[in-house]
């Protein structure tokens, strides 16, 4: 029998082992090829070219994707080799040299890769259309995308996977060179080191794991606290690294020590009287933990990263509407009364509108007193900022119920990044600096919604004061001089007039550009936009990003899910004997399956749960930099992820069912 005959026969015979590896390969090629196809597609790149972030996002995503695919393929090959180690050992036992075995395996690999890349490219070509449609939907553009077979993408995919094949071959050579015959026969037994008693030191490490994670979580909720004197970027990075390190190490310790420890306590308490579920779930998990800890940690961290990235970008996407409302609190705004032409045109076209006018002043106010937590002294000095002040009577047109006494103030627009980072408290007071004196105002109310554009207030809330106090401030010459934007007009329209009004606005205000002169006589410009325009801008920007991250998330999900699934497949094979024993002794299939459900719920559930928790804290610590809505996008992302992830759990249960069925 020649080598190639042997290869073909073993391919045929081993199809059950191969199909897993084969699918892993196909899936990698599919994902990579469809992504690269999109990247090179002219209509897609035209769309993304407009926004530099889009193009950069795509590039970063494809690099990341390459990383995941590489990692995944290496892992799959590793598992695959381990499962076949006996066969490889047998070849050597009957006198095949290591070189011949390598040749044999490489030949197999080449055959598999050729098949996988062909199928993968085919599927990838089809799926890239689906992905393109999703992308367009996300950036809410209605265009037809013609997806043609991109030879550029094809070549890139081929080059990448050829390089990966070389890598895999090197891995194979390395493993075979290094291993002795004995190793090969024992390889499938490695990893799940059997049965060691759990000492107090391990218990301690288990506890350390929990503490490390809690510490990381705690630190993450205080990531942006301005508690120390120097808030520098370096400090922030150090903080972030501390958090990451302590959570990752903590996760490993939890898997490696805490889980076995807790289970051991439960088990000890049973004094030998285990239930069948304990036998099927508790004890195997406990004994495999040592070998599985690393991969479970990896899976948890990957889940957390994928979820955090996806959640953050979805938060940005989801917040497009509310972010637009911050920038443009009304359907349309204009400044300093530069709206004559606009209003004339509206009248000509008989468009009704409601108009709200706000007189504005820029006043130096020390708002540090309002903070929930006092600031360090060194930062306090810089807290006298030019705040935007408006009249109570202007505000009452929108919120008629708000009333103020002398010496009181009301804040509007307390949401978004600043509100999250520096929370304010009602009842505290701020100091207004005028030329002659300082006046204390008590803050009696906080409103989340914006009525003055955040572009004017630099993201901080606008201050509402009584008309009397406002009139007093107007007389201050310095304030008068500083207040270059002295008026904001907000328009709202009926739903069906909105489109026309927006068109008129674009024409009559030069696309929403307003000009004024600052104190030194220099011209200053303000680029407003319609609320919808703002919203579409960010949808387009974040649509690209969410698509790229969503794609990455999918890759992460598939990689982690498959790794877990592969791992469970070999676990199931290892435990086949136990199931035989149990069934011989007289336990039914359904009784055994019940225990396996519990085991799989643990094997898949715990990494998911810890991953979800990790990502929750990661997202919570920095979400305000990305958008203004947290709960809904977070829940949506997490549920979708969990749902897709559980498909793999289901697959593994199906595999176990097969093994149990065959075991007697």
């Amino acid at each position, binding site marked *: 029998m020649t080598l190639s005959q042997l290869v073909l026969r073993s391919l045929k015979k081993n199809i059950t082992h191969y199909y897993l590896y084969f699918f892993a390969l196909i899936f990698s090629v599919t994902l990579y090829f469809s992504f690269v196809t999109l990247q090179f597609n002219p209509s897609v790149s035209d769309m993304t070219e407009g926004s530099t972030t889009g193009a950069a996002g795509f590039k970063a995503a494809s690099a990341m994707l390459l990383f995941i695919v590489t990692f995944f393929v290496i892992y799959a090959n590793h598992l695959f080799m381990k499962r076949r180690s006996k066969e490889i050992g047998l070849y050597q036992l009957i006198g095949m040299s290591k070189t011949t075995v390598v040749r044999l395996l490489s030949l197999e690999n080449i055959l598999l890769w050729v098949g996988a890349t062909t199928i993968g490219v085919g599927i990838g070509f089809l799926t890239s259309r689906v992905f393109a449609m999703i992308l367009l939907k996300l950036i809410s553009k209605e265009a037809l995308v013609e997806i043609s077979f991109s030879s550029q993408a094809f070549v890139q995919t081929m080059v990448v996977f050829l390089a990966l094949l070389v890598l895999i071959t090197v891995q194979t050579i390395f493993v075979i060179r290094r291993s002795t015959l004995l190793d090969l026969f024992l390889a499938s037994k490695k990893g799940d080191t059997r049965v060691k008693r759990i000492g107090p030191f391990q218990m301690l490490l288990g506890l350390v794991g929990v503490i490390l994670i809690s510490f990381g979580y705690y630190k993450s909720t205080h990531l942006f606290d301005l508690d120390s004197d120097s808030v520098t970027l370096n400090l922030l990075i150090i903080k972030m690294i501390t958090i990451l390190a302590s959570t990752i190490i903590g996760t490993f310790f939890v898997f490696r020590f805490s889980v076995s420890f807790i289970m051991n306590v439960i088990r000890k308490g049973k004094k030998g009287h285990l239930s069948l579920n304990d036998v099927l779930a508790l*004890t195997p998990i406990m004994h495999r933990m040592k070998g599985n800890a690393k991969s479970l940690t990896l899976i948890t961290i990957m889940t957390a990263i994928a979820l955090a990235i996806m959640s953050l970008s979805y938060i940005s996407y989801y917040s497009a509407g509310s972010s637009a409302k911050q920038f443009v609190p009304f359907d349309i705004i204009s400044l300093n009364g530069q709206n004559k032409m606009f209003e004339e045109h509206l009248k000509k076209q008989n468009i009704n509108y409601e108009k709200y006018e706000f007189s504005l002043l820029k006043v130096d106010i020390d708002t540090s007193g309002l903070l929930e937590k006092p600031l360090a002294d060194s930062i306090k000095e810089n807290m006298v900022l030019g705040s935007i002040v408006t009249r109570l009577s202007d505000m009452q047109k929108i919120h008629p119920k708000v009333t103020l006494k002398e010496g009181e103030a009301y804040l509007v627009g307390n949401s978004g990044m600043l509100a999250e980072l520096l929370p304010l408290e009602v009842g505290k007071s701020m100091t207004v600096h005028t030329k002659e004196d300082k006046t204390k105002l008590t803050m009696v109310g906080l409103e989340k919604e914006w009525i003055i554009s955040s572009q004017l207030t630099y993201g901080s809330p606008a201050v509402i004061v009584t008309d009397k106090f406002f009139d007093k401030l107007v007389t201050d010459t310095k304030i008068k001089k500083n207040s270059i934007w002295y008026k904001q007009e907000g328009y709202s329209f009926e739903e069906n007039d909105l489109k026309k009004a927006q068109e008129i606005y674009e024409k009559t205000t030069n696309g929403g550009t307003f000009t004024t002169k600052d104190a030194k006589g220099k011209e200053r410009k303000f680029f407003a936009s319609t609320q919808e325009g703002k919203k579409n801008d960010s949808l387009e920007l974040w649509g690209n990003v969410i698509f790229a991250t969503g794609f990455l998330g999918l890759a992460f999900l598939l990689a982690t899910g498959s790794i877990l699934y592969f791992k469970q497949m070999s676990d199931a094979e290892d435990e086949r004997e136990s199931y035989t024993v149990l069934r011989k002794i007289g336990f039914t299939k359904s009784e055994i399956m019940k225990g396996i459900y519990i085991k799989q719920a643990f094997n898949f559930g715990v990494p998911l749960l810890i991953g979800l928790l990790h990502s929750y804290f990661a997202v919570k610590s920095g979400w305000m930099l990305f958008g203004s809505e947290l709960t809904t996008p977070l829940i949506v992302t997490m549920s979708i992820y969990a749902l897709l992830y559980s498909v793999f759990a289901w697959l593994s249960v199906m595999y176990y069912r097969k093994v149990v069925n065959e075991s007697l």
Partner: protein
Amino acid sequence: MAILKARKVKKVYGRKLTAQEVLKGIDIEVNEGEFVGIMGPSGSGKTTLLNVLCSIDHATEGVIEIDGNDLRKMKEKELSRFRREQLGFIFQDYNLLDTLTVKENILLPLSISKVSKAEAESRFNTLTDLLDIRELANKYPNEISGGQKQRTSAARALISNPSIVFGDEPTGALDSKSATVLLENLVTINEKRRVTIMMVTHDPVAASFCSRVLFLKDGQLYTELYKGDKNRKTFFQEIMNTQGVLGGDGYDA
């Protein structure tokens, strides 16, 4: 009283052209309290017979009754339950679960039964004293010797107070000393507790511990020997002689 009755048991592997008849109509009756050995050359169908009798495998034809229960009339679930409650098993390769301690392994068959903890504990104590493995309770299988493993396996087979215990080459993987200890234990259990035991073996020494030995050849019952009042040595000689008649070839000893 007959605890196990088998009538015209046939077992065919494969289909039609490739069909191979392993058991060609076997009749067996085992009385309560008997210690029966099954011997025969390799390929004679002894293990198949045992598997069929103990409901792990299905007979192609024939009737098997254990304690009045017709195995053919029972569904898969009922069979499992029946095995768990009425039968005990000792296998050549111990079949202990590596992840469980000796005690946990022994108590395994009771894990979903309604036997109270106190009762289970007392059975455990009696059996482990009898088999001299009490102090191994918290050890794992990989920490104990083959003989100890097999005695653990025997304790597991007996914990549910089965009406009959099946052994498939229980001494096959043991050295002669451990094998003797195990067999003596089995005899004690058989005599003191009136437990019916049926075991397949190729070892004449092991068979000489039985009260009756059945010889199988080519899927058919060839002959049987009763120990009666004879001592073990004489019985052993008889077994050897029968083996000689049966044909010296093909013994997988």
